[in-house]
Structure formats: C-alpha cells, structure tokens
C-alpha cells in the first residue's frame, strides 16, 4: 500500500472537558472522495478543524508531506463580501492567485472568465458558491476540505458543484474531504463515508456498507432506506 493522502491514528478532541471525538482512525488514499456525515453536534466540524491543525487534539494526523490543501469553511457567506467592494478577481487575489489561474478556475466551475471583473457580493447565490469552489481549487491543491459547501444553494446547484468536484477528483487525482447532510452526494460521488454519531459510535467504509437503515434513522430521525433505481 502506498502513502496515503491522509492518515489519522487514535485522534481525540476534547472541548470544555467533554470528549467530542475519541480514538478515531482513518486512512484516505489519493484521489478518494470521503464524505463526513452525522447529526448536528456529532463533531464533524471539530474533526475538520482538527485535521487542518486549527484546534488542539491528541493522536496523530498525518497528511502526505508537501501536500497542498484547499479549505472551504462552514459559514463563509456572501454577506461579508457584500459589505466590501471587491471584485471576483480581487477576491482571488486575497489568496495571491493571479489573473490567469483565476480565469482557469472560473471556467473549471462553469463560470465565464469575464466574471473576474464583477463585484463578488452581487453574484447570485449559486454563482457565489461556484465561485468559492473555484477559489478553493485555485493554485491546484492536491486535497480539498469542504465543510457543507452547498448549504446556500438549491439541489441542482449543489449537484453541479459536486459534479465539478468529482470531475476534478478523477482528472487531477484530487483528494476530497466533504462534510454534508446530502445523501445523494454520498451515493453519487463519494468513494468512502465516515459516519459520526452523537453517542460516540462511528462507521467508516464505502457508502452502501456504512449507510444502513439504522444509521439513516439516526441521521434523519425517520424510517428511511435508500433505494437505487434498477
């Protein structure tokens, strides 16, 4: 087995004396699309922040040495950007991304390169979210970590974003870690799922093995089963 994009061993995170995560082990290979699911309060965002070294943890988080990681945090919304007269091109410039790379990434997510001149705060919700995905993909990261990237977009917009990410994943061997509640994403795009539960148990594996009726029941609070069309 080659070197993993990410290897997590015995990861534990404690917040205000409460164990949010304990003894988590995880291995994500290059080019895999891992979806992290779980009910609110199960520790999804805590896990993401720990993986990125944004909060203290115990255990080992080992990214492949030299790997370039893009991050799209939860709650990065358009309202802040609307308060600032910043064009899409200048928004990319905040990450020191040049004009040519900005144009490439905008086209990658299906936006015209002329959009670089438009005020970022006045894009439609769907355009803004696509622009954020382009922003994360700028500079050709080898891994991206996305925390609920489609919260502000409709179903079709969300599907488009995941199609773009899935395509990038296949073509550029991009490793994707994605937090979502959207079951369609898991079955359509994910290679693996990590399910976190509020009561501390977890499952990790391919979607059909992990997302059993019991897990779906805990996640959505109803008797659910996922059927695929024959």
């Amino acid at each position, binding site marked *: 087995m080659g070197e993993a994009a990410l290897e997590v061993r015995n990861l534990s995170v404690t917040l205000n004396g409460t164990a949010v995560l304990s003894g988590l082990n995880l291995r994500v290979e290059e080019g895999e699309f891992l979806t992290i699911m779980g009910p609110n309060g199960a520790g999804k965002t805590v896990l993401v922040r720990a993986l*990125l070294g944004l909060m203290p943890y115990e255990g080992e988080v080992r990214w492949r040495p030299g790997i370039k990681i893009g991050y799209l945090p939860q709650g*990065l919304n358009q309202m802040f950007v609307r308060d600032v007269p910043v064009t899409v091109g200048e928004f990319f410039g905040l*990450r020191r991304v040049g004009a040519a790379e900005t144009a490439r990434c905008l086209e990658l997510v299906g936006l015209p390169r002329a959009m670089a001149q438009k005020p970022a705060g006045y894009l439609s919700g769907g355009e803004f979210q696509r622009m954020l995905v382009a922003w994360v993909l700028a500079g050709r990261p080898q891994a991206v970590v996305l925390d609920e990237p489609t919260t502000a977009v409709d179903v079709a917009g969300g599907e488009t974003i995941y199609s773009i990410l899935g395509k990038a994943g296949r073509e550029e061997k991009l490793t994707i870690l994605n937090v979502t509640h959207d079951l369609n994403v898991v079955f359509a795009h994910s290679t693996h799922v990590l399910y976190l539960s509020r009561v501390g148990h977890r499952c990790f594996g391919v979607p059909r093995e992990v997302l059993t009726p019991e897990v779906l029941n805990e996640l959505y609070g109803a008797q659910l089963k996922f059927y695929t069309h024959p």
Partner: protein
Amino acid sequence: MNHQLLLSLISGVFIAGAAAYLGTLMLSRKMAVVAGPLGHLALPGAALALVYGFSLSVGAFPFIVLGIVVIWLLEIRTKLPMEALTAIVFATGVGTAFLFLPINKAEAALIGDIAQVSTGQTVAAVVLGVAVLLAVRRSYAQILLIGIHEDLAKTEGVNVRLFNFIYLAAIAVIVALGVDLVGGLMTAALVAIPAAAARNVSRTLGQYGMAAGAFGALSAVAGILAAAPTRLPAGPLVIIAGAGIFGVTLFWSRA
C-alpha cells in the same frame, strides 16, 4: 499662505488620509466605531498633556497602546468580540479621564487643536501617516482574509495574531494622531465617514482605498481652510466636511 496654516494642512491631510484608508478595513470588519471608544481612551493621556503642557498625541499614544494591548490580550483570552472588549476598556478610560481632566482646558482634548500644530508634530504626522499607509497596504489582504474567516486565513498560512496586532497598532497610531486633528470625541468619524463615502462610489478594492484616502484628505483641507474665516474650530469642521462628502456620494450609491 501662512506657515501655521500650511503645517495644519499637511498634518491634516496625512492624518485624515491614512485614517480613511485604514477605515476601509475597519468598515469591512464592522469595527469603524471602535475608533470612537479608542479616542475616548486617549482622554486620560490628553488630560495629562494639558496639565503638563505637552502634545495631545504624545499624551494620548501610551494610553491607546495600553488599551490596544489589553484588548488584544483579552481577545485571545476570552474570544469576546473586539468591539465588546473595546467598550469595556474605553469606559475605563473615560472614567479615569474625568477624574483628572481640567475641565476649563478640556476643549482641545475633546475637539482637537490642529490649528496650533507645531513643525515637530507635523513631521511626526507625515512620518506616522505614511508608515500606517504602508503597513496597512502590505497587510490589507491578510487582515481582510482574517475578517472574512479566521480559520480560512490560518489555513492560508496567515499569522492571525501578528496581523491582528499590526491592525490594532495601526488603529492606535491613527487614533493618537486623530486626537490632534479632531479631538478625542470624534476620532471614529475620521475612519468611518470617508470610508463609508468611498464605499458608496467604489466597485473594486483598489477604488475603495483610493477614494477613501482622497475623501479623508479633502475633508481635512476643507475643514481646516474653513476654520479661519468662520472663526470655528477646525476639528468639527473636518467632520462636517466629511459628512458633506458622504452626502454627495449618496447620489452615486450602489446599494
């Protein structure tokens, strides 16, 4: 043009221009009003300056720096919003000031004394104004990114503590200089009004910074030039000139 007026204009242009440019960042981070409490925090120092007869800015600066450091440390310790911490620290400053401020001499501390600025103070205003402009320009992207999302800035390799400190230090310098221009009561207007006016007419970050600096400098020139013929203090006139510019920009507002 007489020598004193020239000194006042030069000081005013550099202080107001730098304050307005910094103001664009403060407006973006919803912190424009923070300069007000910090100006009030300058009052104990201004009181000492009046009692012992030295420059208002020199008196104000250590108190503002002390206040900024306390706010910075409290923010790291408590993670309370910066504006809440500023309010706590500023109330302490105002309370302390009114214990010592000689009320019969309080006018200069409250509304500024730019008409009496010395050559040394003018040189300091130019040097510090340019230093703030350069420091803010070099740190603009990082400070804006922190304002957009702190975790995102960290993953981009931004040293959040360092850039927050640079940001607060720039505010401290501008507020201390602003006490000379418009007094301790109105420093928020120096950062907020020209930046808000610039926001009305700008489509890009580049235009935003340029327009804010120009509006700040213009309001300083207008206010200082209007002071002599009207026999009114320059500080309030600078603020009113800024408000007038803001009023005009409303016709171009994109909101």
